[in-house]
């Protein structure tokens, strides 16, 4: 829609048309600028979304179950020893009988 201003000089109507054309071009140009801005912002947001996803936290609770199970092992061993000592009379009887039996 570009028109050389010199070609229309001297004509009010053409002057008005020329200005109208320029105005229309400006409207479209502004729309294109806003569209570019929209797309730029969208790409920025997309990049940010992807970066955030890549930065997702590592396993936060790592180690806790292992620690709990480690403590459980100690607890069970303690229980086992307590149990065997509580039943040491039975064990002693087994030992005596074994000693005397051939």
């Amino acid at each position, binding site marked *: 829609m570009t028109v050389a201003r010199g070609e229309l000089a001297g004509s009010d109507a053409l002057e008005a048309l020329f200005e109208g054309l320029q105005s229309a071009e400006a409207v479209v140009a502004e729309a294109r600028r806003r569209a570019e801005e929209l797309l730029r912002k969208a790409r920025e947001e997309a990049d940010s979304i992807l970066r*955030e996803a890549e930065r997702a936290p590592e396993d936060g609770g790592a180690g806790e179950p292992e620690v709990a199970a480690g403590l459980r092992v100690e607890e069970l061993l303690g229980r086992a020893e307590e149990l065997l000592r509580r039943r040491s009379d039975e064990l002693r009887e087994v030992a005596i009988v074994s000693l005397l039996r051939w």
Partner: protein
Amino acid sequence: MASNDGALVSTILGELKRAADEEAQRILAEAEERARRIVEEARARAEAIRAERARLREGERRRRLALKLAELRAKYLSGLYGVAERVAGEVMAEALEMLLNNPEFRRLYVENALKEALRSLSSKDLIIEPCRGSEEFLREALSSILMTGRHPGVRVAIEGARDCRCGFVARSADGHEIFNATIEAKLSEVKEHLLAYAWKILREEGLWPNPELAGLSE
């Protein structure tokens, strides 16, 4: 400018403005749609990345837990064996003291051992070396057993005392057979019985062989 020309120009200008506005709206609408798609696609990709990372993390967590569980089970079983061994050792020491401090137990030990020795050894000529302190029990038991007539033709020579705590060592005169009835030799057999009994107790209480190691789910 003539009025007709003016009207035409106004119409053209109006048309130009309308067309420009429409074009601007189309451009913006299209840009908005593309922008929306860009963000939506990014969100979908982000979701896929998160899901994949979560899947990898979960796999890694499971592998790590399985390894840890195996390691803890091994540690537990080794610890449990240590506990059983320790308690059995203490109980055995107490039982041994009880036996050694009780003459009736010592007499019974020697008598039972002698019966087994005479049953096991095929030779008729035997030599027995009693432990120090067991000589008297051995002579009494031997005389009592031989008097039953269950071992006809068996000749037993009792030799000097050995350095052991209770019992004796019997051997055939030709040296081909030997029966070690010292309490020291008997103890390893007793320990086996004690450990078997200890494992039985632990099994009854669910502490062996597969205890629940709470907190570690595979």
